[in-house]
Structure formats: structure tokens, C-alpha cells
């Protein structure tokens, strides 16, 4: 299972408390994890990335294992520790605005 940490507003939207765990078929990439996350929690569609282009929303960032993956292409593999389920993929709302 892949562990994902969501920001508070998206946890509310998805109807979950704390971390979520999702199964991912095949290679564990940023894209495949987001696909599985949106399939498991449909209200998150459009809230993290664009419905059509899948472009990351400007004020959403991706981190894992102390790496900023926000600009990583969707097909890039996530760190082994994320694939193994020992570390989470963190989806973070940027500190911006008031």
C-alpha cells in the first residue's frame, strides 16, 4: 500500500482522517499514485491537478523522503521507501495568501 498525506482541506473533502493508504498497480510513479488516489477518492479530482491536462495546481506541492518532487514528471518513479510503504508521499498546500 502507498501512504499519502493530504493537507487538511483535502482530507475534509475526501472524508478521511489522517493518512490514506492506497493500492497502486504497476510502477509506483507520481502519476500512478495520483491516478489511484483520485480513483479511490473522486472528490479529489481537479483539486490537486487539472482534470484534463493533469498539470499540478500552482499552490500544491509534492514531497517525499525530504525531496521536492513538485516538478518531477508524472512518469518518474517515487523513492523506494514510498513504493515500499515505509514513507508517505506528502501533498502540501503551499504557504501563500492569507
Amino acid at each position, binding site marked *: 500500500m502507498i501512504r499519502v498525506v493530504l*493537507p*487538511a*482541506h*483535502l482530507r475534509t*473533502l475526501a472524508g478521511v482522517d489522517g493518512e490514506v493508504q492506497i493500492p497502486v498497480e504497476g510502477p509506483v510513479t507520481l502519476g500512478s499514485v495520483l491516478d489511484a488516489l483520485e480513483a479511490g477518492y*473522486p*472528490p479529489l*479530482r*481537479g*483539486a*490537486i491537478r487539472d*482534470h*484534463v491536462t493533469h498539470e499540478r*495546481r500552482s*499552490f*500544491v506541492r509534492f514531497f517525499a523522503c525530504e525531496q521536492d518532487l513538485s516538478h518531477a514528471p508524472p512518469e518518474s518513479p517515487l523513492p523506494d521507501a514510498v513504493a515500499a510503504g515505509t514513507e508517505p508521499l506528502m501533498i502540501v*498546500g*503551499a504557504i*501563500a*495568501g492569507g
Partner: protein
Amino acid sequence: MSGVRVLVGTRKGAFVLTSDGMREKWDVSGPHFAGWEIYHVKGSPVDPNRLYVSQSSGWFGQQIQRSDDGGKTWEPVGNEFTYDGATGTHQWYDGTQHPWEFKRVWHLEPSLTDPDTVYAGVEDAAMFRTQDGGKTWSEMSGLRLHESGPRWQPGAGGMCLHTILLDPVNPDRIYIAISAAGAFRTDDGGATWRPINKGLNSLYIPNPTAEVGHCVHRLAMHPSRPSVLFMQKHWDVMRTDDAGDTWHEVSGNLPTDFGFAIDVHAHEPETVYVVPIKSDSEHFPLEGKLRVFRSRTGGNEWEPLTNGLPQSDCYVNVLRDAMSIDKLDSCGVYFGTTGGQVYASADSGDHWAPIVRDLPAVLSVEAQTLS
């Protein structure tokens, strides 16, 4: 027993205010969707317990929420608003062309006959519709593809489609308004549209009487007379008696004719309400006095309504979707302010009292009359 439910959208969540027909004691529920901008909440006229919410965030984009029990529980529904085909360009602030980009839903207008059908006015300006209770949304692209589209431009608040009026007699006729393009009408259910801005005179645009480019802030209609519309424009309060074919000014003796909100009494089609705002650069009431102005003559002759409203040191704004009326025998009038107050009058505006005083800035107010 009759009652009223007032649906309030704010910068940081939605609130549901309920009262019996006396409208003296109110129950306040919320915040719903705390921390999100709620541009609009509106109920179906066919099924008042069916509510739709526009929920948005600069971080996480647009969501639409639906309730089937009057706001006790909510369910996120479809939030994909994709323009139909090539998006094209509109005029940008510097006069160059800029591609259409979806930002948020400003206004949700449920159908008069079907609780599953809702129209959505969005920024960048376009009209969408759902016919399955919000699960999917399709653009009514005849509006955005109007030949004048490249001349539409954003106002300070963005290029928003903020007003949708459904003709209760002719189901094929819909009026909408866009800042800053103007008012438009369809007579064929949304397939084709035409600008209805003849008579508007906007001194702040290159051609003050242009076909499009006017900053229309709000339209209002009485359902018994759907060819008569009232308009609060950037400056000027206007009226049409021929479904928008021609407009004439009815600002009359208003102390300032800048403003955002406008509405019509539930039982008196010639009784109109506005909240004059000092100017386009000073978005607060004149002299720090919060005054609703009422005309009982369809415009031109206006009286200030002040009883119960702050008459000193008040520097709030009342936004375009933040005024509403109920349909009880003694018509209720409601409005919300950017200072977080929601004021109510149960006697057509003669006396006012705050329902709540300290909400986040109020973006929208919709009153539902419950039987």
C-alpha cells in the same frame, strides 16, 4: 408553519440561517466548508431542500457541493468545468488578447422546473449547465462563442458571469450579465445569445455606448413581469421594459448611483432596492451611513431606509450577490456585508436588524421561503 432559510456564502465558509415566519429568532448553522471561499449557495425552487454550493480555493480549485436535506448533510458532486472546444481569447487589462481560463463558479441558478438542472455562471465568463444534479457540467458555448467575445474584458474582480435570470413564462428565455461585457439574452434556450446593452452609457470605456464592454454589476426581475429588468451598473441604475432591447436610467435622486446589489420586492413589481456605494474607488457607503434605498415607483424616486442600520462609522461593502428577498406576505429583505453582518427586514425594509454580526466577509445571500 411557514419559515425562511437564508443561505450565506462567505470568504471562509457557508452559513445557513433559519427562522420561522416571524423572522425574529434565528438559528445559525455553520461554517460549512470552513476555510473555503463560498461564492454562492442556492436552493431549487422545485425542491427547497436541494441546495447547491460553489466552493472554491486558490489552492485546490473548484468544488460543487449538493445537499438533499436543506443543508444538514452535503455531498461533493462534479467539478469539471471544461470549455467546449477551442477556448479562444478575450481582451486583457492591457488591451491584448488573453486565452479563456476557468477560475471559479460565481453563481448557481437552479432550474424553475427541475431540481437536477442548474445553470452555472463562471469566471472566465461562460455558462455551464448540469442536468443530472451536478454530476456533470456542459458548457452552453453559444454564449462564449458570440462574435463579441474577443472584446469582453475582466473587471477588477475578474471576467465573471455573475447573474442568471430565468424567465418564468418563456422557458427558452434567459438573461445573463458579465463584468465587463454587459447583459445578454437568449430566446432559444441558450443556443444563441445577443447583447442587450442599448441605452447603457459607460463613460469609463472608449466608446461609452458600445455594444459590449459595460460593467454590469447585477440584474433583477420580478417573476410576474419578466420583460421588465432592473440593473445596477458600475455607475447608474437602469431599467428596461422591453426585455433588454432598450434601457433607460432610473438613478433619479440616489445620492450616488454606484453600487452592486439590486433586488425587487416579492409582491410589488415596482418596488426596487439598491445599496448605494460611494464610488468605484471607495467601496463603502456615503458618509459612513449604511442605507438601503427603496423606490416604490420603479426607479427615479428613492427613499433611504435606515431604521436599525448603522448610521455612523460604517465602511463595509455589499456585494452583487449579497441581497435577497423572501416571499412571505410581509416581504423580507436580506443583505450581507463585507464586514460579516447579515441584516434582515421582515417588513419590506422599514425596520432592520442583524441576524449575525461577525461572519467572514459575505459574498452571497439567498433567501428561501419555506412552507
